[in-house]
């Protein structure tokens, strides 16, 4: 865990309401694993006060990328940052996705809804590194919600797109597309990130197909270090349901441990 107060922004990209920032933060980059996140100070003033938790979207030897959608004041301020500016970045925080040796030679489904694709790019790269075959699913309401479409296609992984309105790829929900694919393929595992309803539905689908899965959850956070207990949600460990810290015990949890908000 490091705090880099002067992580220089080396690249910015934007697509409507979606943004990508690349920052130079060598210490953090060296330790980062897929599924971990950063706590980023979006303003040098004290308003807004808290850092913002953002998934690590991609990581090289010395640089880290974040991909986000503007959803409030914090992300709006972050979206205004320009190349050359410095960011105060802390990380890598939390526990990442579980990359298991038995994934080697097998297909692994990586399912992202909207901005939920953020942690899955880094994950797919690492899966490839360990000899697994990432199969990416990327869903959104409409084509403009799939800004990373080209990037995924260029990465060379099999990528399946869905839009609610049929403007690109499969017409319907990404969960329906996954369900359809599961009829004739047998991946070794599924990783997902996206809206609560999407992940809850995927958890059901995985359970019916006897497919192991992990999901990355989000929450407003105070510290990102496990100190404040502000980001909790109900998690089931064995027969015991308790509030667990998303920042420390997560943000990635096994599907069977998550108590979905609709339950």
């Amino acid at each position, binding site marked *: 865990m490091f705090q880099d107060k002067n992580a220089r922004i080396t690249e910015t990209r934007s697509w409507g309401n979606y943004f990508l920032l690349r920052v130079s933060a060598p210490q953090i980059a060296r330790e980062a694993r897929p599924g971990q996140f950063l706590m980023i100070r979006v303003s040098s003033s004290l308003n807004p006060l808290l850092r913002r938790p953002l998934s690590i979207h991609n990581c090289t030897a010395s640089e880290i990328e974040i991909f986000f959608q503007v959803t409030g004041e914090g992300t709006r301020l972050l979206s205004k940052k320009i190349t050359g500016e410095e960011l105060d970045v802390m990380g890598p925080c939390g526990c990442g996705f579980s990359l298991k040796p038995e994934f080697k030679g097998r297909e692994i489904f990586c399912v992202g809804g909207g901005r939920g694709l953020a942690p899955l790019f880094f994950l797919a790269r690492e899966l490839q590194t360990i000899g697994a075959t990432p199969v990416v699913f990327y869903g959104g309401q409409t084509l403009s919600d799939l800004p990373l479409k080209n990037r995924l296609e260029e990465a060379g992984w099999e990528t399946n797109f869905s839009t609610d309105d049929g403007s690109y790829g499969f017409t319907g929900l990404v969960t329906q597309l996954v369900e359809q694919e599961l009829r004739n393929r047998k991946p070794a595992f599924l990783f997902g990130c996206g809206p609560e309803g999407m992940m809850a539905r995927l958890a059901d689908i995985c359970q019916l197909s006897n497919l192991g899965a992990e999901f990355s959850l989000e929450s407003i956070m105070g510290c990102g270090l496990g100190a404040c207990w*502000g980001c909790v*949600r109900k998690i089931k460990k064995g027969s015991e349901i308790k509030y667990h810290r998303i920042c420390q015990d997560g943000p990635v949890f096994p599907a069977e441990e998550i108590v979905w908000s609709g339950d």
Partner: protein
Amino acid sequence: MVDLSVDLGFLKLKNPVIAASGTFGYGLEFEPLYDLNLLGGLVVKGLYFKPREGNRPPRLAESPCGLINSIGLQGIGVEAFCHEILPKLAGLQTAVIANVCGEEEEEYARVAEYLSRHRGLAALELNISCPNVREGGMCPAQDPEATYRTVKRVKQVSSLPLITKLSPNVTDITAVALAAEEAGSQAVSLVNTFLALALDIESRKPKLGNVLGGLSGPAIKPLALRMVFEVARKVKIPVIGLGGIFSSQDALEFMVAGASAVQVGTANFVNPLACPEIIKGMEDWAESQGISSLNEIVGSLRV
């Protein structure tokens, strides 16, 4: 050379900066980021006798320059703390202070008594002021008599120095401070958070699962400073000031207003290095002013 140490009478701190309860976990969470021995002290998260579930999320909401929380003192309980955490803290060269909670007077006593049987603690901080555990934010610190009784009861069972943490949600905080002093508290720390509400006009729902929460951060600093000033003029025991301290200047202001030491809370979230940076800033300031000991400025406000 500036002497940063402060003497609270019952406890000598290497510098006046203490990490505040509830913002610093059980002490070890910040260890990956800096050497905890730099701190004057640290107060661990509030401890009840048994593990505690805490409040329904969402537990955090921001307001301008402020944070409203309703954690509800989720925690591991005093037994797990003493066996799993305290041995790891005992080797630190900083004052480790346990924050003592209770549903009622007897639980405060049980927690304090249990903690006192273990080595490694420099003092207890009596948390009679959390606004998040009872309906409407009620707590013993809202009543001088309840404060007196709780402090007195804890003093009967524990020989550790006692710091009583006060609530700002009262008409006259000095009356509560005097009650704590009279009951034998060796210091008071103030202020805990201000009872607050955040809501969403579209959904017409409160932003916090527990409806009300406690406001902290820079937004409360002038209010906290005023209360420290008022209390320091009334009591003879040392006052530990807290409430929105984010910089060395803030910390120095509290000392000038009468605080012998300070606690840094919410700032730990915004800048995890807040405590060591504040210590360094205070040292640099004292040096630039030709002040040899920070004790010189305590209560030096010219009015």
